[in-house]
């Protein structure tokens, strides 16, 4: 019988390692939950580092240290003299690098992926616990190398997180030989960690689902991480290879990207964006999955169009690999090629639209609870819509050409990555914190944190659309150097103030997070009355997760089932049809979707 083999595989994988106890468990534990928490704490730490870098660079934009005053004096009394143009370039390069590789990916994939996948599919642990732990430590090492590069001669990499060659590949051009080389090493190691995580997740999801947990009974959070893992596996090796080539160009005299010696700068762009565009979806899909689940929990309704949601994510995953060229319209691309990439880029908006409509469909007819988690999930939807729609401008070549390297695109990427991913992450933390730590986060503090974050976030990033349209380039250390941008300076200062407000609002979250570890209300097994398997075990779950491997009888979203005793039916609750034969035929068709 197939279920016995499944059971066997869960036993052999889940319990082959003993529990590590005491303080050592936070370093050497192979338990997916501990590794998930390690990822959570580390990447939240990096979030504050990346945010600090952002505030420094925002300060320079508002009060440039290079500014010449009206009276001829050099410098602004409010400016920070240690931010010279080269350091400024390092700041935005490392801000993006930290946020992408050390914060958003590890939070969504490392923290939530590790913590939730085994619990949600009814497994005792990941398929390869040792590789899982190794992946975490390689990630930490990559972070240490990337941040350490600030302290080497020449400073950290300053060629942008996109590291376009030949600026990045020739040290005479970039002046950061060591920093750029360390960037390559850090990115390479980070990629290694991602790849290790990816095949672990795929193996776990394919092989270790509890009996009855068919693919189409998996919660969308698991589906999204499953698809993301495939994207990682296909995209990240390309970046790792490119980083290795860049490292060789810098240190071994090769000329992959330097045209002076016969190399091709566009090769770097193709390799980078072949990774870079799927990367955008890598950083948003898991948030989409979690938010779908959270909207369903707090609307007390099944996800609207579950299968459409799955297919849309698969479509995004597939199409995500054939749109990278739109990042290169500006490089003078052949017209046939730009037409093809233009169409594929427009088409990828369709599955995103499908997801948005289904989220609205989930809210429709619900019984909506405005918890902090729900507020963040709703913000995710709204902000993602803005970020998605502003992307349409970039899919249209002539408009893209104009706005491509302005603050318009900075606004766009932050609406997707902060408005989308970060609100999704907050929604996830507010939802699963009780499971992770056994205590509730304070809802009042949570709502204050949400309100301030939402307000400051929009005050900070929305005007960037305007300054971008006004012609302000990204990646310039001093907008006041340009006559046509001087009039925009008050808006730049306003954005900076909003960014500071946004940054400081996060301390409320930090306070809430750490205070609730000891003082939060005890959560109990299932504080949200949710249906999925992680809520049938104790909070936090013990080593091995499930005392008895659960058997799954239904999909992940049986909320408000008519005639049911409660407004939620756990996935491991047998069909009422098995006890009362009469209803069987009628119920079957409804839950099948």
């Amino acid at each position, binding site marked *: 019988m197939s279920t016995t083999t499944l059971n066997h595989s869960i036993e052999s994988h889940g319990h082959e390692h003993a529990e590590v106890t005491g303080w050592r468990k936070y370093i050497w534990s192979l338990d997916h939950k501990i590794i998930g928490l390690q990822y959570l704490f580390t990447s939240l730490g990096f979030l504050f580092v990346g945010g600090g870098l952002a505030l420094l660079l925002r300060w320079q934009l508002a009060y440039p240290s*290079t500014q010449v005053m009206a009276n001829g004096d050099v410098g602004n009394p409010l400016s920070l003299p240690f931010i*010279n*143009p080269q350091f*400024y*370039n390092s700041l935005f390069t490392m801000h993006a690098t930290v946020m992408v590789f050390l914060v958003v990916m590890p939070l969504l994939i490392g923290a939530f992926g590790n913590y939730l996948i085994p619990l949600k599919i009814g497994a005792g642990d990941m398929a390869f616990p040792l590789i899982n732990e190794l992946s975490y430590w390689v990630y930490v090492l990559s972070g240490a190398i990337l941040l350490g590069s600030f302290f080497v001669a020449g400073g950290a990499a*300053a060629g942008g997180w996109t590291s*376009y060659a*030949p*600026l990045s590949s020739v040290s005479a051009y970039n002046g950061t030989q060591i920093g750029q080389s360390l960037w390559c090493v850090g990115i390479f190691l980070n990629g290694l960690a991602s790849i290790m995580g990816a095949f672990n997740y795929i193996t776990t999801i394919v092989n270790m689902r509890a009996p009855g947990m068919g693919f189409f009974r998996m919660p969308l959070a698991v589906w999204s991480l499953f698809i993301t893992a495939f994207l990682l596996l296909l995209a990240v090796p390309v970046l790792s290879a490119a980083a290795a080539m860049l490292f060789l160009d810098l240190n071994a005299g090769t000329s992959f990207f330097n*045209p002076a010696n016969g190399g091709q700068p566009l090769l770097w762009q193709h390799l980078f964006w072949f990774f870079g565009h799927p990367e955008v979806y890598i950083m948003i899909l898991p948030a989409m999955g979690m938010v779908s689940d959270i909207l369903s929990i707090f609307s*007390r*309704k099944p996800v609207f169009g579950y*299968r*459409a949601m799955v297919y849309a994510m698969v479509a995004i995953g597939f199409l995500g690999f054939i749109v990278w060229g739109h990042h290169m319209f*500006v*490089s*003078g691309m052949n*017209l046939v090629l730009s037409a093809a990439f*233009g169409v594929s*880029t427009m*088409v990828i*908006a*369709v599955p995103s639209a499908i997801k*948005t409509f*289904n989220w609205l*469909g989930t*809210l*429709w007819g619900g*019984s*909506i609870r*405005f918890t902090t988690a729900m507020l963040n999930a709703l913000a995710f939807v*709204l902000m993602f819509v803005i970020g998605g*729609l*502003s992307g*349409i*401008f970039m899919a*249209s*070549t*002539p*408009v893209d*050409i*104009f706005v491509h*390297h302005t603050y318009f695109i900075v606004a766009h990427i932050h609406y997707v990555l902060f408005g989308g991913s970060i609100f999704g992450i907050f929604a996830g933390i507010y939802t699963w914190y009780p499971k992770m730590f056994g205590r509730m986060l304070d809802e009042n503090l949570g709502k204050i944190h949400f309100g301030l974050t939402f307000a400051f976030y929009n005050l900070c990033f929305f005007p960037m659309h*305007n*300054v971008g*349209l*006004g*012609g302000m380039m990204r990646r*310039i250390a001093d907008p006041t*150097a340009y006559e*046509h941008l001087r009039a*925009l300076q*008050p*808006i730049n200062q306003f954005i900076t103030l*909003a960014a500071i*407000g946004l940054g400081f609002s996060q301390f409320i979250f930090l306070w809430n997070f750490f205070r609730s570890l000891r003082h939060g209300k005890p959560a109990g097994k299932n504080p949200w009355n949710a249906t999925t398997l992680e809520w049938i075990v104790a909070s936090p779950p013990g080593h091995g997760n499930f005392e008895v491997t659960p058997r799954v009888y239904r999909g992940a979203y049986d*909320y*408000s*089932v008519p005639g049911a005793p409660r*407004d939620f039916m756990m996935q491991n609750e047998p069909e009422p049809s098995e006890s009362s034969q009469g209803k069987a035929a009628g119920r079957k068709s409804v839950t099948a979707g």
Partner: protein
Amino acid sequence: MKLLETPLMTRTSSLRGLAFLTAFALTLARAQAEIRETSVWWLPRNVNMFGHDVDFLFYIILFLTGVAFIGVFFAMILFLIKYRYRPGVAAIHTHGNNALEVVWTTIPAFIFLALAIYGNEQWSKMRRQTPPANALPVAVVGEQFGWNVRYPGPDGQLGKMVAAKISKENPFGIELADPAGLDDFTTYNELVFPVGRPVRLYLGSKDVIHAFYVPEFRLYQDMVPGRVYDFVWLKAEATGNFQLACNQLCGQGHYKMFGKLSVVPELDYETWAKSKTPPPVTMTGR
């Protein structure tokens, strides 16, 4: 402004907590004061013939995305109010509706495809149209951190540019055997275009990738080293002074890699060109 500042400032001195919010309000007020003078919140004016198509497409997209956003926004607000939790009212148990899925898949698909096709047509139009014969050829070669500019002399022709020949000594990669190049003259960080006459650009780079960007021309072109871009052309429709900015990160001096760009009447252009006496034998630029 004065009226606004004084009462707020005195208040904040007593209430330190409000200092931050006040600064916020003041900057906002100052920013709004700017709007009235220069419309800093929106597109700068367009002076390029091709810019009209870009702006038109921009407004089409803005309209479509605006409608989509307003629709989603109000639907969400409506649902959040109408379907908020009320005791005794249960949620509707539904797993979806296939007809709806088909509708909201096909409608956006058609809109997006139409946009892609229209946008691509515009783009082909801009790129495929060959510059008219009377176009003024101008070569612009970026370097860390400035613009080498080369104009044709009295013969109206630029010396032939070869990407592979671009070097420190020969920034324009000029074919030395080409007689057309002998009377060319060069400038540094200074561009002058005659109004109403097409200008054909020959763009290149000496070192890293630079980009030719003038917002008022709705013009952006990366200049990847190892290549000469000869398909960019423009026609200025109004005179004025503009700034040419490098818009591809090119190193620590990137932020001040800009040049002066003036659009002047044809006659003024001729006078300016004559004033730039060409050196006796100029193969190279600066």
